[in-house]
């Protein structure tokens, strides 16, 4: 029992160290259409607010994994637009139609998910 708990704890520590030391990153390209809309809602990648793109496109370095693209739906509430899967040294491109209410994600490559769950864009 003791050996089992110890090896489990060891495995957890190794996994935690591995995750912390991982330098694997990929890229997310977010295109907003139309490019210049003054009244467009703010976009968030997980909880990080994105600067309004100068020419309608932002390219961000992200740690490998799944991240959520969200928009401010008013009153400080964030609504998930889509999930973005970031892979090592690959770019995941998402086009956000900001004229739609709520804004809509269009993935260059997507996986079909449950109709109730948000769209998932993959790189």
């Amino acid at each position, binding site marked *: *029992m*003791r050996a089992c*708990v*110890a090896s489990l*704890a060891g495995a957890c*520590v190794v996994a*935690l*160290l591995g995750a*912390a*030391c991982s330098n694997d*990153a*990929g*890229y997310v*390209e977010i295109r907003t259409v139309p490019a210049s809309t003054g009244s467009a809602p703010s976009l968030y*990648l*997980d909880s*990080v607010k*994105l*600067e309004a*793109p*100068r*020419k309608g*496109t*932002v*390219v*961000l*370095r*992200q*740690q490998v994994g799944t991240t959520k693209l969200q928009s401010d739906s008013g009153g400080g509430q964030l609504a998930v637009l889509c999930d973005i899967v970031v892979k090592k*040294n*690959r*770019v995941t*491109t998402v086009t956000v139609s900001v004229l739609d209410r709520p804004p809509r994600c269009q993935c260059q490559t997507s996986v079909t998910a449950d109709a109730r769950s948000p769209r998932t864009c993959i*790189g």
Partner: protein
Amino acid sequence: MINSIFGQAGFGPVGAQQMAALLTLVFFVVSGYPALAEPEQTTEADGLSPVEEYARQVDQFTKNAPDLGKKIEDSTKSIDGLTDVAKAREEIERIRAVIGDLLGQVTDNGVVAQLGAKARSHARQKLQALERETRFKPEERQLLIDQWRELLRQTEAAADDLETARSEFAGLLRTLQTREDFIDELMQLRRAAEAIKVIRQLTGEIRDASQKLKSLIGGIKPPGV
């Protein structure tokens, strides 16, 4: 405290100490690791104004980029001589890593872009302050305004060039990954000959893109130079 927790969990005193040391190590590694999405902090204690600091970063990027360009060229050359799809794919992955490295330096949440935004904001604030300035003679004030206007123009031009480079890097990365996916699909159908043909076409595309990027990066001028 940690000793008592692990002691209760069934670890001996030595095991508990080792675990405590391990957890301390984990804490330092985790807390010392920067979040990728968060902008890196820059110090103003070094006395550099944001425009100078930005110019230094842009200069460093344009100086480092040719080395990476050479790595792309070397990998492309070795792909040309390969007939083994698996080895060619490894080289493509290597090129993807190099392009990713270049793109990583100019992303919107990277150091250079963040400094660029800071530099533009600083130059605009300086201009606004000079417009209200009453200490200097009109011609002196105009001289300073003209200098800051020029610095702002150069800063914006560098930011625009870097934005173009960013878009080109992302486009090249997209081409590489899409071609790689197509090669994978062909290999699943055991169509190695077609896969090799796609790889050959891809090396041509990489060379063209690399040349374009070389001249693009060579044309980026840090502000104030």
